[in-house]
């Protein structure tokens, strides 16, 4: 196989080094490496990170191929610097059987832009009543280890307890979408000053926090590990911090949009800002950033949720919830965490690659950039600043809240097991 020499890259933001890729593996990392027989990529001081890993992506296939497919979704992932994504189970049909998860897994492998690791549903049809065949999904070719009813909360305490217990048998983890359903009936946006004024149904923070509190206590009681999807409130941060201090095996994620955007944007009634969980307040945003910096929140996950134009080009109440995020995630993290001094690039590698790979047990991903490791790499031009133009997205959908916003950083190259999937910002 071919060789590639990345010359003068700041590995994890450190001093410039050369990185030699041979086949699917990092051959060497050092200074003045020989370019003999290798294609040379002049990094020129760009930052080299391990390929990013997204624990929370909606690829929509099967069922909603009008908004995204495994192909378009993995191309978007490669554009954003990702080499592995975890595909959520809320497809049509639901990924609650070995058959569906194997199909999604195989499509990802065939397209070759980004590894796709399917997430299995916790309950049949995401209905929250009957456990799906978790073991069969784990034993399938897809090797599912993460289970989630994301989009819906596993709100029945007994079902949640059983799921937490059951997946221990094969080292799985349940990722909870924390949303108390009764408290969020008719909910349209964060409940607070802005919702009161706009007359939109309130989505109280406590609807998220109460479920997280319950689930960390359940996890402690049955000795399981639990992962909390898209934490969005300052109160949730406090609960997770408390749980970790108690030694409870809990991990948590935050989305890029919850690190940057607030419910003030809803004043435009533009459904591009409609998302689940909803955009919260400035105070929540600051608490989330701090928690990501201090490790209370373990990872950044995109909750990439593509929707066709017509599902957003309407009145707020009728619009679908969700935002695309794969192609802007790293830029938003640079804007909110790196450029603010809260996190260095090694920290970004930790939150967006090492830890998500570890939580999801994505073999070969989230590895150090060193000799002998799989060549899953991302090269980032951190000096770049540009305006987000969704017309250039690889995703099939355009529902980004950042259109027209200036953000820093641009992924120029992505390598998946040594094969370039993105070169100079263009997909291969």
């Amino acid at each position, binding site marked *: 196989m071919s060789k590639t020499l990345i010359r003068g890259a700041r590995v994890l933001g450190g001093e410039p080094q050369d990185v030699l890729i041979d086949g699917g593996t990092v051959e060497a990392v050092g200074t003045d490496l020989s370019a003999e027989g290798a294609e040379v990529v002049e990094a020129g001081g760009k930052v080299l990170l391990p390929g990013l890993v997204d624990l929370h992506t909606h690829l929509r296939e099967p069922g909603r191929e009008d908004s995204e497919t495994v192909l378009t979704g993995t191309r978007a992932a490669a554009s954003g610097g990702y080499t592995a994504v975890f595909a959520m189970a809320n497809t049509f049909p639901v990924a609650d059987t070995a058959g569906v998860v194997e199909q999604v897994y195989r499509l990802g492998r065939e397209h070759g832009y980004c590894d796709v690791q399917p997430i299995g549903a916790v309950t049949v049809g995401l209905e929250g009543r009957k456990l799906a065949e978790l073991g069969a999904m784990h034993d399938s070719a897809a090797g599912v280890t993460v289970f989630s009813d994301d989009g819906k909360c596993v709100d029945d305490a007994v079902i949640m307890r059983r799921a937490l217990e059951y997946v221990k048998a094969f080292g799985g983890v349940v990722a909870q979408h924390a949303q108390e359903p009764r408290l969020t009936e008719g909910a349209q946006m964060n*409940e*607070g000053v802005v919702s009161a004024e706009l007359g939109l149904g309130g989505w109280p923070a406590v609807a998220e926090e109460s479920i997280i509190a319950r689930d960390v206590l359940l996890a402690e009681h049955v000795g399981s590990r639990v992962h909390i999807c898209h934490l969005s409130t300052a109160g949730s941060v406090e609960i997770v911090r408390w749980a970790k201090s108690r030694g409870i095996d809990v991990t948590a994620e935050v989305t890029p949009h919850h690190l940057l955007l607030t419910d003030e944007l809803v004043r435009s009634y533009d459904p591009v800002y409609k998302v689940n969980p909803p955009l919260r307040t400035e105070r929540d945003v600051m608490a989330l950033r701090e928690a990501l910096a201090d490790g209370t929140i373990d990872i950044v996950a995109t909750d990439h949720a593509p929707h066709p134009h017509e599902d957003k080009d309407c009145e707020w109440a009728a619009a679908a919830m969700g935002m695309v995020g794969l192609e802007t995630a790293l830029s938003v993290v640079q804007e909110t965490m790196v450029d603010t001094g809260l996190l260095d690039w090694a920290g970004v590698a930790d939150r967006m690659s090492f830890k998500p790979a570890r939580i999801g047990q994505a073999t070969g991903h989230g590895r150090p950039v060193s000799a002998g490791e799989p060549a899953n790499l991302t090269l980032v031009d951190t000096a770049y600043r540009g305006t987000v133009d969704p017309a250039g997205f690889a995703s099939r959908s355009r529902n980004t809240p950042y259109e027209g916003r200036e953000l820093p950083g641009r992924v120029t190259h992505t390598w998946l097991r040594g094969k370039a999937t993105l070169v100079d910002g263009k997909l291969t």
Partner: protein
Amino acid sequence: MQRHLISAADLTRDDAVLILDTAEEMARVADRPIKKLPTLRGRTVVNLFFEDSTRTRISFEAAEKRLSADVINFSAKGSSVSKGESLKDTAQTLEAMGVDAVVIRHGASGAPYRLATSGWIDAAVINAGDGTHQHPTQALLDAFTMRRRLVGRDTGLGQDLAGKRITIVGDVLHSRVARSNVDLLHTLGAEVTLVAPPTLLPVGASAWPCEISYDLDAVLPKSDAVMMLRVQRERMNAAFFPTEREYSRRYGLDGDRMARMPEDAIVMHPGPMVRGMEITAEVADSGRCTAIEQVANGVSIRMAVLYLLLGGNEPAVTQSRTTDSRTTEEK
């Protein structure tokens, strides 16, 4: 300059007083043998109602016809709002028909704002009530009624409601009337107090420019006007209050309570009234209750709004929130 009327919060004090003063002149047309003005001849106004509201629709229709506008009534109820497409499609259909203004009633908060700012349509948009957000012409007609009763029909001209104490009682949470009134009455210098069980006040209402109380009896003697909001019986099924009887006892207005109000204080109701719930028949039928006047005043206010938005080559009312690059362009 404002082309639309989306929220009472968008009106400045001078805008609001201009509308009230104009409505006072419009009201005089109702006393004439021929209740018609040629002002909007050749202008087409669509009443686009996604939600049933015969009262509001008829009031707008009367106002439009008195100003000689061509009126199209479009009841879109039943056409699938949940499918989302319908508002945009309907708007573009109306645009193609060349309408000058859309009076819209919609169950979704923000639908009129979307209509005005999304680029789907170029016509002026008048909000006739959206979800639990705003109902600006209702607030204007309420303020008009208060100014007539509390300041005076002629002495009120050019005046606001400075220092008047207005109490709004009932289901504030689900009320666009309450939101619009708080905004407008504050702009006009009145002191507003909301009275409701805590379950029927929105979280976040503490940021509104008004006082909040749970005790109706304490507030009544200090009220120049008491506005009773409709309370739907179904709310008790969602545990907003235990029973109808308990609600009436704590927050309903009966003859005894009315007697505690200052002598010249008025009782207002946006209608339709639920007699025996928030208001007793004795109060509703008393001379202090302005519910019927409010209906008549609604036509005058809507004539004034239509005239000021559509009567010239550009609107006479300033605008803040709904202004975007589009709205400032020449039509």
